[in-house]
């Protein structure tokens, strides 16, 4: 294998690099194309939803979601109130006797 052969290989390797360069460019360009496509779709979608909301359409999902969230909040709130109401029933007899004494002191003349 002589010097000519090495040169010939050099040319082929250079071609390989040129092709790789092209392949890299294609890869980046494809990513850019996909990115632009994603952004364009997101913008169009956002604009469409905003316009629909402005006209009062398509907000059922949001309202349903708000309703479900509120129902869960209401349920928790009721549970808390029930627990507090139950706790009121656990006042000790001593406390009740103390309160009765206070009432009698106020009712009876001194």
């Amino acid at each position, binding site marked *: *294998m*002589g010097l000519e*052969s*090495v040169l010939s*290989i050099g040319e082929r390797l*250079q071609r*390989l*690099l040129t092709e*790789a*360069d092209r*392949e*890299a*460019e294609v*890869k*980046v360009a*494809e*990513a850019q194309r*996909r*990115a*632009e496509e*994603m*952004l364009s779709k*997101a913008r169009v*979608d*956002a604009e469409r*939803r*905003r316009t629909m*909301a*402005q006209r009062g359409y398509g*907000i059922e999902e*949001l*309202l349903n979601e*708000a*309703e479900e*969230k*509120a129902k869960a*909040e*209401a349920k928790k*709130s*009721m549970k808390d*109130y*029930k627990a*507090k*109401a139950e706790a*009121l*029933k656990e*006042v000790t007899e001593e*406390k*009740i006797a*103390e*309160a*009765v004494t*206070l*009432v*009698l002191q*106020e*009712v*009876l*003349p*001194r």
Partner: protein
Amino acid sequence: MSTTPLELETQLIERTIKQRNELLTRAGESAEKILKAAEEEVERIGAESERQILSLVGSELRAVRDRIVGGAELEGRKMMMLSRQELLSKVFDAARERLAEVAEGKDKSSDYEDILVKLIIETVTAIGGEEFIVSANEKDLAYLKKNLKKVNEQVSDALGEGDLKLDDEPIDVIGGVVIRNSDGTKTFHNTLEGRLVNVRSRIEAQVGKTLGVI
């Protein structure tokens, strides 16, 4: 030692392949970066869009929440109020029973006859004048009839004057008196149950605090 053409060729191939791989790796990284930035931007657009929509329909969403959560809050507060009232009623019912025991002389810690005289003095003081007609329950009327002279003296001692007469018709009360002046223009109810009602409206909050429920 000199390099043979074969070795030279091998080195050249290895270097070139390395270069190629680096080139493609860099391109892959760039592409990944571009897509990641795009994904982030898509997310930002989506969030901004949600924010705008929420601001557009915010009042409707708030109305939904207010209706449901507000309703539950109202019901819960009502439930609490009823429980609290139930407890307060328990206290005031017990107090009424104790008052009945006091009036019947069953409560050894109280001197009901003294209480009755104090109630009479308090009442005639509020009415003013000299002559009074006293109404009371059967038991108290019997006591007052029996001790009218003494009670009149106690009233006179306290007020300087005062002439009590008794209404023969007993009234249905647990204790205390209803007194009117002789011409019937002024009547003062000073019964134990009446006082209990007044006290309830006045110190309910204080009783609640004593019970630890307010």
